[in-house]
């Protein structure tokens, strides 16, 4: 059951928390910027 845990697509040396951009337990790539909902100023909600 051993796995090289550095191959699961998580940047384990990151100084930032990983969970902010943790896309899915089934994905080996993190969220893209446009995937992360963010509390932007209401003026930015243009559409």
């Amino acid at each position, binding site marked *: 059951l051993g796995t090289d845990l550095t191959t699961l697509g998580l940047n384990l040396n990151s100084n930032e928390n990983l969970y902010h951009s943790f896309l899915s337990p089934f994905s080996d790539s993190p969220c893209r*910027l446009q995937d992360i909902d963010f509390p*932007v100023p209401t003026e*930015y*909600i*243009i559409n």
Partner: protein
Amino acid sequence: PLGKTVLTKEQNQHLAILEGAYKKLPHPSDTERSRNYLPRIAVNTPAHYPQVPPVGHDSLDFLCKLNCDTLFFMFYYMEGTKAQFLAAQALKKLSWRFHTRYMMWFQRYEEPKVITDEYEMGTYVYFDYSKWAQNRKDGFTFEYKYLE
């Protein structure tokens, strides 16, 4: 060292049902707010295309190197996300200012002719999202109450 255990009937059932679920895995978009203007659509691009964003793509320095149109695209098409927020920060760093009434980004074309506590007036470049183009505007009054 403990060896195998015989799976119970229920565990074998679980395994069979899991096999079925394995064919209907969740899509990343199932757990994301609907993106009306840029929905996530999985497309199998050729393997030699970059499959993940470049390293450092989520840093302000990286965004400041992008050309303005890219930042405007991120700002207007990725609403309510970290991309929009960072794009706005990068634009400000590149001395653009967001006008909250026209909802457009303005940049001084030259030193304004008039500057008071309430407004400044002069020639500006602005990005018109409806025409998706940058235009120049002479004699424009930028009221500070609309400065974000």
